[in-house]
């Protein structure tokens, strides 16, 4: 009898492992080649800048806008530069840290890039960082937000976006001011990013003496009724979810169906218009999203407007998440080249002193490479659209 049970257990384990393993392979096997083309060899005045990120993988929706933002900055530079030209070489890591390392090695040794925009995600940044340090190649990322990246002592690493340690407290503080809640319910997806953000938010709430209850959902599951029950029993004034838009969509729908009316808030992982599709227009209405990114939806600030128009003219779509940060990251490097710095070492020295008004914010790096200006923006879903309300110091909830 026991052997039969053991066999059943074994079968389940094998089946699960196989399916999971193959599913994991399935997402990352396409060719990961650079698309920027070969060096034209002729002019010694063409410099190569790399862009590394997930361009065809599962989360490519997050990386295509910044790659286009960087491309826009490079094209604008080439249009007005009379001497040095710049070529943007794209490295499609699919966001996979294991694929990113050989690509970075190729970029440094074969393509001889002078600087890199990216890598896009925190995981690949962690792996690629040492390669770029060793090759003495400066990098500027517009979207890798893990706080620990700034703590490696890397000399060539920079970031033009506020990190996750800033985002959580900033949005919690904003909610306390905007809603003066008595009780908050904090939910996460039990993944590294979601838990980190949810922990930070919960701590800030508690610091400001807002009672906090917590629960977690299974990102692969769909039935969140037990979480809805808990929320209903807790009767919170505000609900924060740490995780990505797909799960938030399902959760929102079930919360609203379950009669929960409290404001639901989430972070940059959920800043995607697909949230509306996943939750349904009614359930998504009024959801608040915090993000270190600046997405200039219909902004009339002149610089943002010009940027949006130029971007749309070139790529046929509005600049979405991290587009402005990608543009700024590339611009920081291009400013160095414009000032006559053509070697990686000199560009890196210039980045340490760079200080200019970028599209997304003032671009100035601290000694550890992190951005000096820690700004978190607030977005809200209204009528099925994602509206930009401003940064946490000025946004007003509708």
């Amino acid at each position, binding site marked *: 009898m026991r052997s*039969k049970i053991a066999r*059943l257990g074994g*079968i389940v384990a094998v089946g699960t492992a196989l399916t999971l393993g193959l599913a994991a392979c399935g997402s990352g096997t396409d060719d990961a080649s650079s698309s920027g083309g070969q060096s034209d060899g002729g002019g010694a005045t063409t410099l190569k800048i790399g862009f590394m990120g997930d361009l065809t993988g599962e989360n490519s929706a997050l990386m295509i806008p910044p790659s286009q933002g960087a491309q826009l900055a490079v094209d604008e530079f080439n249009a007005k530069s009379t001497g040095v030209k710049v070529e943007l070489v794209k490295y499609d890591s699919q966001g996979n840290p294991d694929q990113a390392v050989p690509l970075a090695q190729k970029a440094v040794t074969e393509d001889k890039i002078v600087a890199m925009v990216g890598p896009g995600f925190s995981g690949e940044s962690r792996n690629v960082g040492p390669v770029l340090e060793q090759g003495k190649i400066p990098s500027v990322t517009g979207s890798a937000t893990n706080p620990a990246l700034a703590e490696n002592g890397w000399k060539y690493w920079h970031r033009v976006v506020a990190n996750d340690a800033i985002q959580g407290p900033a949005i919690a503080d904003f909610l306390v001011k905007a809603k003066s809640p008595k009780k908050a319910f904090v939910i996460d997806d039990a993944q590294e990013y979601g838990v980190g953000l949810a922990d930070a938010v919960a701590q800030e709430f508690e610091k400001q003496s807002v009672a906090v209850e917590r629960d977690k959902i299974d990102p692969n599951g769909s039935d969140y009724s*037990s979480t809805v029950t808990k929320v*209903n029993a807790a009767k919170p004034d505000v609900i924060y979810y740490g995780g990505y838009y797909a799960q938030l969509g399902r959760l929102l729908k079930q919360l609203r169906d379950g009669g929960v009316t409290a404001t639901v808030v989430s972070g940059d992982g959920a800043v995607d218009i697909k949230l509306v599709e996943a939750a349904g227009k009614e359930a998504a209405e009024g959801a608040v999203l915090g993000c270190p990114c600046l997405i200039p939806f219909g902004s009339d600030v002149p610089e943002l407007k010009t940027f949006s128009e130029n971007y749309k003219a070139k790529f046929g779509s509005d600049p979405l998440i991290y587009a402005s940060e990608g543009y700024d990251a590339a611009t920081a490097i291009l400013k160095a080249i414009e000032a006559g710095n053509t070697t990686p070492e000199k560009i890196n020295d210039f980045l340490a002193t760079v200080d200019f008004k970028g599209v997304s914010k003032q671009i100035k790096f601290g000694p550890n490479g992190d951005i000096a200006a820690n700004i978190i923006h607030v977005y809200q879903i209204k009528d099925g659209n994602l509206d930009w309300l401003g940064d946490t110091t000025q946004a007003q909830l509708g």
Partner: protein
Amino acid sequence: MLNDFINQVGPSTVGGLSIGAIYALIALGYTMVYGVLRLINFAHSEIFMIGAFAALFVIMKIGITGPLTGIALVGMLLLLMLVAMAASGGAAVVLEQVAYRPLRRHGAGRLAALISAIGASIFLQELFALVIIPEVFDRPSQGRIQVPVPRLLDRETLLTIGNTEIRNDHVIIIVSAVIMMVLLDVFVNRTKIGRGIRATSQDPETATLMGVNIDRVIRTTFLVGGAMAGVAALLYAMELENLRYNVGFLLGVKAFTAAVLGGIGNLRGALLGGLALGLIENWGAIFFGSEWKDVIAFTILVLVLLFRPTGILGESLQRARA
């Protein structure tokens, strides 16, 4: 703690019974196929997925965008249920023809059939992720992203007991599942082909000697088990309103667990196991948090199997070994 339980036990019970009813319907497919073939049909989770997407396809073709009411709602749910049952049942029959029958013909062992099942499962998932979702559902390069299902049914509270709201969708799910179980029970216990299924599951060789057409019995088993997954698929799509290429995976694991908990090979055990699993998960979540759902469910499964190795109602397995 006790206070939490008192506050949450009502809603948790309703939620647990609805998801449990869906587990139970899927569990039937595992348990029926196991009964006749002693095979864990790992591709059954994809049979479920096919039924769900078939229903969504019809919803999109008809062009439903908002919730329905009255007779239109009932008619539409019945139509979609038939579509999902036909798609899942048909797919299960094809699966049997393609993935299992040739192996059986050549006398391959059960392990070969199991690998074939896992292969079919992966093949079907990838087929949907790479071809069907992007092409048929017109979502290019979004094959692995969830597909929303338009709302068919406006949620309405029918009855409030204390803090427990019983909604129309919960009632539809539980009632449909119970009706299906009763029909299936009658089918297996009262019809001629049902007797064939029972005979085959007790002793295939003797059943053949008695004139039972084994191939036909197996085909019917896959058809009926698949159709039950189709019913589950429609109820799932209606309730949770999102589908993915791998939507069946987690549900399949849970349903398989429910089948083992209830006693694999036993139809009533599948119902009992499904409802029990749904309830255990949701009650456990009250005390330990939703992230412990699976741990609690599997701990209970192990405990039950320690004391009743054949599951709660699992006599047929005992008989098979005797």
